[in-house]
């Protein structure tokens, strides 16, 4: 064997056995969505690095399982998922191919953020797909309630403390600070929304039940006839009639849905159509969990005021 061949052999062997050393001092946290990333950032501070797989402006049900995500998961110490089947179409194959024992479902580094949260719309009785793409474990858009934000933060703080007992005091302190700030903000948001309690709205997808419950909106219908099923003419007509009957003046649309049907409904009923981000990163200005509610509530109040003025 010539020397060059040997060198090539050694180099190939080295390439195959070299494992990237991700054992830095910071915990590497990967989250499914930007909302979880924002909360994790609040709790973990400078002791962790955080990255979200999905972007806030994309439909979290339909993220593509790109191999580049496998590389991110491969190096993760913690994976935080929204759970409740939200990521069922894309996260399982990524976890499977991650070659990372730490973040397999059930392992120490896997956290289902929904386990402590208050979940709405858990279907009862017999459920079938005739109801559309229902989530048997309840509505997965639970982060849209600051109360759940605190619960998610607590889950994350406990998980980080479990993995880094030495930094436990730091994480708990960060959690306390986040909770205090969120409490104060929530009080402010509730006060802002109080005069408009009971405002009737229509939303595109069932993304806002937790938000509506917390801030007193009354969702009377959905543009989707059933979850995950695109609008049909008959359903749209029924919805328009119902909106006229109940005098509904607001239509809320997630940033990733087509505006054609919502705008048509708006023209027909005189309702305003708002693009309301249900996630951090849904629009450029919403860069963290606090700004998500700030933005959404300000947008709503402006629109309600405008509709009352006319």
């Amino acid at each position, binding site marked *: 064997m010539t020397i060059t061949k040997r060198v090539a052999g050694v180099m190939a062997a080295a390439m195959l056995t070299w494992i*990237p050393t991700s054992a830095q001092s910071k915990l590497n946290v990967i989250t499914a969505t930007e909302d979880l990333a924002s909360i994790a950032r609040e709790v973990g501070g400078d002791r962790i690095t955080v990255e979200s797989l999905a972007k806030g402006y994309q*439909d979290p049900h339909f993220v593509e399982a*790109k191999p580049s995500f496998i590389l991110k998961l491969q190096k993760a110490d913690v994976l935080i998922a929204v759970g409740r089947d939200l990521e069922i179409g894309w996260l399982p194959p990524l976890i499977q191919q991650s070659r990372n024992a730490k973040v397999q479902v059930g392992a120490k580094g896997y956290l289902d953020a929904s386990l402590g949260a208050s979940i709405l719309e858990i*279907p009862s009785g017999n459920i079938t797909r005739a109801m559309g793409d229902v989530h048997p474990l*309840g509505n997965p858009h639970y982060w849209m309630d600051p109360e759940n934000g605190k619960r998610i933060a607590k889950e994350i703080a406990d998980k980080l403390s479990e993995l880094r007992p030495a930094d436990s005091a730091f994480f708990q302190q960060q959690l306390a600070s986040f909770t205090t700030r969120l409490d104060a903000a929530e009080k402010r948001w509730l006060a802002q929304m109080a005069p408009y309690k009971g405002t009737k709205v229509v939303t595109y997808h069932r993304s806002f039940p937790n938000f509506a419950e917390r801030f007193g909106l009354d969702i009377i219908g959905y543009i989707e006839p059933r979850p995950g099923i695109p609008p049909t003419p008959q359903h749209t007509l029924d919805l328009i009639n119902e909106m006229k009957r109940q005098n509904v003046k607001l239509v809320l649309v997630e940033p990733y849905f087509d505006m054609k049907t919502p705008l048509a409904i708006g023209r027909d009923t005189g309702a305003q159509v708002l693009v309301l981000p249900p996630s951090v990163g849904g629009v450029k200005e919403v860069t963290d969990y606090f700004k998500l509610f700030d933005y959404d509530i300000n947008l709503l109040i402006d629109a309600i005021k405008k509709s009352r003025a006319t």
Partner: protein
Amino acid sequence: MVTRELARLCMRLCVWIASAGLLMCPSTALAQAPDSAQALRAEIDQLKRDFEAIKQQYGDRLSALEAKLGAAPGSAAAAAPPPSAPALPAPAGTESGTSPQVLGASIANAKVFNPDMAVIGDFLGAAGTNHVQPDPFGPGTHPNALQLHESEAAFQAVVDPYARADFFMSFGEEGVGVEEGFITFTSLPGGLLTRVGKMRAAFGKVNSLHNHVLPWTDRPLVIGHLVGGEDGINDAGVSVARLIPNPWIFLEAMGQVFRGDSGVDPNGHPLFQTTRRRELSYVGHLRGYRDITENANIDLGLSYSRGHNGLSDGNLADPGSLVTQLYGIDATYRWKPLQRSIYTSFVGRAEWIWSRRDQPTGLQSGSGMYLSGDYQFARRWFAGARYDRSDRPDDASALDTGGSFVITYWPSEFSQVRTQYRRTNYALGPSANELLFQVQFSIGAHGAHPF
């Protein structure tokens, strides 16, 4: 059992409501005495508050129970939460069980360890004539104008903390077969992703895909001619894959060893066939992937496969069989704007395949390729086109070419209807014009979206 508990809870709730009612009636009567009116009012308010609190408590418990009941029949559909994690109320150190409002624990249910099950039906129809290949979807001679081509039953679950298992049984019109059945070790040291069992080999792109995720009703001509057709290289063996770390791209190397029996060529002859135990077949695959932007990416692959073809090597002392070698290059370009990802996308695919087949009459070196594009122009609508060309495996001088147009409609994520016009120009027979139809439907667990 849960029903009985629910009934008992309901009864207790009724008793509470009744007793609260009884308590309230006399107090309203007594309230006429003017001096004690205020005290009584306070008492009533207190009672009301108590009652509301109890109602709230029971309401929460009831809804938790209802959720439990509701989850039981649908649990098979709950594909995502592999059994181990969500069944537990909460990881140690958390207090999710303490607050009555928190419903986190309600997802436990009795069938949680059953594998996720799904059945996918694939109904095919064909019109037009084809004298060279009468069966529109295979090398057979039956005209098969209408057929329930395949019903695929999938069973998938986590085995233990170290592995998961996937079974895909295919019920065809002639019988049942294990299309794939393998265990995947997800956490082996050294980052090796290892599969053991029967599986579709990682030769190129299309060979590893199940029928129901293809963008066409059929498989490209070159796959039928050179890579073993619909079943393709699909065999019992071991597969090992490893990521090759580098700062630029996703790079995965995969090596597979199989028994050596796979596929059928257009003449009905196996692609790989063993006559001796040592005549194993091998597949090597190198895959490179890179995001170009957040909306677009490119996926490239190099493949090699070698196996015995069952044709006698003429060695009378130790009879064995000759060798077929396959080389492949595949390229996939995907575009999907993130913010409108459910409405519009484009996938362009191409594969080139070279076959070197030793035959008693000499070596046949053939090649073939396909090039296809699929554009999603609305949430439920896809249009595609494909160009085909391939030499025949046993006679590389005979070149067949063809083309297809495809329209697909998705009523929902769980069903699709497809029409394909296909023209094939055969070197050794009259050209064929065919119209192919497909209805696909899936029930059961929500599988992963194909990528």
